[in-house]
């Protein structure tokens, strides 16, 4: 069965610090990968996605992620965080090859930014 692991449950950073959130998945085939963000009181929204091609993908608000196939990883990065990045971040995986595909999420990482 597919699974997604996010090892950091709560990350606390100061403004302007660099961010890296880990995501590892377990699935033997080709996958599509996503990072979603949930700001306090809001619904989940897409930050970025990887389907194929360049393994370094850029998303909204200065976020990027790198797909490393050999490590089954899709870590999220941002060079300099802002207070407004305070949110919960979810990594997700969906098998490719079929349009009727489940999307499996990790347990999330809560990010708190100190002003």
């Amino acid at each position, binding site marked *: *069965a597919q699974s997604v692991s*996010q090892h950091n*449950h709560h990350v606390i950073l100061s403004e302007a610090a660099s961010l890296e959130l880990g995501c590892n998945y377990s699935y033997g085939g080709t996958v*599509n990968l*996503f990072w979603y963000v949930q700001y306090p009181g809001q*619904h*989940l*929204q*897409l930050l970025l*996605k990887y*389907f194929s091609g360049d393994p370094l993908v850029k998303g909204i608000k200065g976020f990027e992620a790198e797909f490393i196939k050999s490590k089954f990883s899709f870590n999220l990065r941002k060079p300099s965080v802002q207070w407004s990045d305070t949110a919960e971040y*979810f990594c*997700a995986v*969906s*098998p*490719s*090859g*079929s*349009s*009727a*595909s*489940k*999307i*499996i*999420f*990790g*347990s*999330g990482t809560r990010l708190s930014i100190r002003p």
Partner: protein
Amino acid sequence: DVKVTQSSRYLVKRTGEKVFLECVQDMDHENMFWYRQDPGLGLRLIYFSYDVKMKEKGDIPEGYSVSREKKERFSLILESASTNQTSMYLCASNRGAPTEAFFGQGTRLTVV
């Protein structure tokens, strides 16, 4: 803009009641999903539907059923609500892999 609308933001139900959570999407998406979100556990997939009347179990289907009679509507049914089903329930839809999923605002269900 894609819109996924869940019928209630907050619900309080009694143990043993049959509970219906409704979700409607307005973008003609093939796939619809029901998740529950609990602190520290993230989003766990309950059921998934890839077409009208078609469904697949997710990771935690026990105690739940679903109905998809029309393409735009996906209902989650708690046959006999229990206190351990107190949670935030999220509905989502997409056009099919590899497209992104769009989420509703969630229904916070409390079972007393």
